[in-house]
């Protein structure tokens, strides 16, 4: 049985996506890559990942829409980490209002991202076990 945790990453910066893919796969996760919100939603519906990482400003279907879709239409409790170049308070609040779990503003440290992913997955495991 494949116990590797699945992560869906929606990021349109190709080299950043490559870097994160490399780093996260090294940690043992399986990466599913999307270049925009629409692709991300398709991957999420298909694979039901353990964690979703998404940029906010993406063409056409924004990161905020992805979160909204996951929480309201798919009704999933999957942890979602959002990144954005926009450190604006309003964007952050919006993201959390819609249902994001965590937020990292760019530029961010990939090491910190990994720590947060591990923490969220750990918390989720405890949460799932209790219920």
């Amino acid at each position, binding site marked *: 049985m494949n116990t590797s945790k699945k992560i869906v990453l929606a990021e349109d910066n190709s080299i950043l996506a490559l870097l994160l893919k490399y780093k996260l796969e090294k940690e043992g996760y399986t990466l599913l890559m999307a270049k925009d919100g629409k692709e991300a939603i398709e991957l999420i519906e298909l694979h039901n990942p353990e964690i979703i990482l998404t940029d906010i400003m993406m063409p056409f279907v*924004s990161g905020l829409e992805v979160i909204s879709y996951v929480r309201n239409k798919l009704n999933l409790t999957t942890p979602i980490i959002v990144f954005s170049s926009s*450190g604006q308070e309003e964007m952050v609040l919006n993201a959390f209002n819609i249902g994001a779990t965590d937020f990292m503003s760019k530029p961010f440290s990939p090491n910190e991202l990994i720590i947060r992913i591990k923490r969220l997955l750990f918390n989720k495991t405890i949460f799932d076990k209790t219920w």
Partner: protein
Amino acid sequence: MNLNTSGLIIDLIQYFFIAFTFSAILSYLILAIISIFENRHYMKKNSFVNYKDILSSTISPSISIIAPAYNETLNIVENVRSLLSNHYVNYDVIIVNDGSKDDSLEKLIKAYDLVKIDYVINNQIPTKPLREGVFKSTNPAFEKLIVVDKENGGKADALNTGLNISPNKYVACIDVDCLLLEESLLKMIKPFLETTDSKVIAAGGVIRIANSCIIKDGKLLDVNLPTNMLVRGQILEYLRAFLLGRMAWSKLNGLLVISGAFGLFDKKIAIEVGGYDTKTVGEDMEIIVRMRRHMEEQKIKYKVAYIPDPLCWTEAPDNYKIFISQRNRWTRGTIETLKKHKKIGFNPKYKSLGIISYPYWLIYERLAPIIEVTGVLYFIFLIVNNAVKWDYAFAFLVLAYLFTVLFSIITIITEELTYHQYKKKGIGLQLITTAFLEPFINHPFILYANIKGNFDYYFNKDIKWGEMVRKGMNKASD
């Protein structure tokens, strides 16, 4: 009549036409040369601008995109979504549904989870009343969207409603079916923020023709040259006007027109002058002239900026009927605007606006087609009376034709050296071919539409806007 006198009159008239042609050619050349220098300067200046910094700033000024919509049900949901994904932080999108008879509003309500809200409107500019009201989304992801449903009043009236509703400092007035590239607002707001020695009242952009281009999910994926010759001719025409014309006018601060498809305005000044004029069909040109005039009268140093980057892509008419109707409307708009503001013409009180811009527009935009057609009729008259000096006529016509072709090719080269949007193989040759054919394919119809426009303006008061049939931008239509 004495043979000598009639010969003299014929000569004089001929000299007039030739002199006019040469003066027109000279003016195009001057504008082209100034434009080329300006283009180079602009490309240099912008080669190292980092737009990303302003992207996320909390201090970047607030902008409202106002898009009037009338019977746009085919594409409205897609277009709105595209507008919502602009890469700017501080903006909202106001869709003004101008009394559409179709289900545009229902589609929007469904797609964006809209609910009716109560909204206090500052009616600084009188407009037609609301119909269904003001709507906003319950989904925070669409928080930027405001939809207004009102009684039909025309494009100018819808824009004025948008001006009344907007809470922001700047307004971007666009056509709802335009595709705005992601960095459009960033690039357009720059002159407003960068200029320290004068007040920028408006900024105009370049309109690129989207026919046959692949647009998917609101993103311009592929730029193709359409096969339709009429559209190809328009592409050349737009390139000439935008690259070799408006760039110079912007440098001379004499820009009289900002395309109605995409323009950014200082909201306070737009409202101060009374908003758009609902009684004209050329409201985009008219408001700029009025705003400029206002600033001149107030004696405040001002500027109308111009951004040559390709930011706005829209569909151009691909059949003659709609094409002629569009040009007819443009003609009437020009006539109405020039007439309404004739006080500034040749008036030194209005400086370059009155001494250069207005006369140029009057002579080379409004009167030129009439002079040209008169020239043609005169030529026919001469043929009938066997008074044509064929050697002269023929040599002259050939030269004039070659000049237009040459000018078009210089335009194409300028485009290649600046924005190079048409990358595919073979397009270069196709564009050159178009340069040779355009004088026969487009130009006569433009003349016809212009004359008809004049005729309609003076004798046919009932005509209004005309329809534009939507084809749907997602299909690669040819």
